[in-house]
């Protein structure tokens, strides 16, 4: 009969060897020696305690964990703490409305350019400008109040969010809006 496998030796160490394998173990010196070696080292390991830290360590440990959690919370966001959806959503809506208004503002007629008179518009450009006209007509009449009434933006959310920003955050918001306006103009 074959020697005990590593699984069976572990079962034997833990007293869980199936009865049908006991006969082999009883007759096999190699398996007995192997089992005795494993059992001995396991017993050694079981009886090895670890040094107990001082009682003071335990008293302060939960406090230490608490401090570590606070530090972790403050470090976890490399993003500025004010960048949350509660702030970003109204800003996003406000930016969309501004964009809509900018599109709605009548632009200088490109017909003034002599080149524009000569060059016929490409079909895609024509289609695009038609889409823009439609968007302009749809969005052009929508101001902040209308958007609020339509439920696009809850009344006062954007204002509330802006009012709760610190001076530094307001500066950042101004910068973002300016950059957005600049991008839209160009």
């Amino acid at each position: 009969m074959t020697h005990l496998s590593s699984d069976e030796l572990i079962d034997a160490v833990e007293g869980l060897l199936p009865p049908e394998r006991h006969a082999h173990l009883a007759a096999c010196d190699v398996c007995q020696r192997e089992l005795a070696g494993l059992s001995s080292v396991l017993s050694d390991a079981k009886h090895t305690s670890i040094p107990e830290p001082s009682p003071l360590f335990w008293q302060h440990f939960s406090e230490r964990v608490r401090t570590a959690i606070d530090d972790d919370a403050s470090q976890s966001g490399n993003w500025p703490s004010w960048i949350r959806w509660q702030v970003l959503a109204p800003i996003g809506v406000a930016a969309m409305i501004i964009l809509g208004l900018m599109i709605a503002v009548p632009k200088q007629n490109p017909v003034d350019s002599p080149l524009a008179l000569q060059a016929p518009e490409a079909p895609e450009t024509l289609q695009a400008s038609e889409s823009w006209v439609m968007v302009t007509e749809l969005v052009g009449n929508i101001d902040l109040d209308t958007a609020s009434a339509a439920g696009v933006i809850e009344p006062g959310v954007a204002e509330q969010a802006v009012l709760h920003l610190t001076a530094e955050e307001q500066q950042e918001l101004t910068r973002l809006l300016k950059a957005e306006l600049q991008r839209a103009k160009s």
Partner: protein
Amino acid sequence: MSHESALAIQAWALPVVKPLAGLEDSELVSAAAGGSREAFDVLVERHQRTVYQVCYRFVNNHEDASDLAQDAFVRAWRGLKTFKGQSALSTWLYRIAVNVCLNRVSAKGPAMEPIDATDHVADVRIEGAQHAMIREERAVAVRKAIASLPDKQRATLILRTYHDMSHQQIADVLGSSVGAVKANFFHALANLKKILGTEP
């Protein structure tokens, strides 16, 4: 109204506020997941010793073990909302602690017991208990040998031998199969035997 009935009404009307320390782990987890730091403090106090012991067995020194145990609890706090209670909280904490240890150990290399960890051997000598000293020296050697085992073998041996976890629970913690756990346990013991030169 009798005094007894007045008391009965009072007891019924007032909400019963159980002290946190008297709550079950599952109740504390719910409270902590809802943001109660006090509830989490109680959980830390309840499980700090076992989590520390897992970490100590891994790294074999107090400084690293306390850092790792702390790290394990920070991660537990972060992940509380993901704990669904399918396993015991202690098993979940073991899993976190073992993962923290495995990551740290592989990043830092093999763990070594500092020289001062054997200081208490000298204390024992002063007591004149030669037998205790020999036993303690043996314990130092065994801890060192365990700390030198490959990661999975070490984790398996620690969880099976010192925390009485079943093969299935260890498999869950390590993300492996029962067969792999048994194989790792066998190799851990065989390697320990080789390192320690244990003769039956």
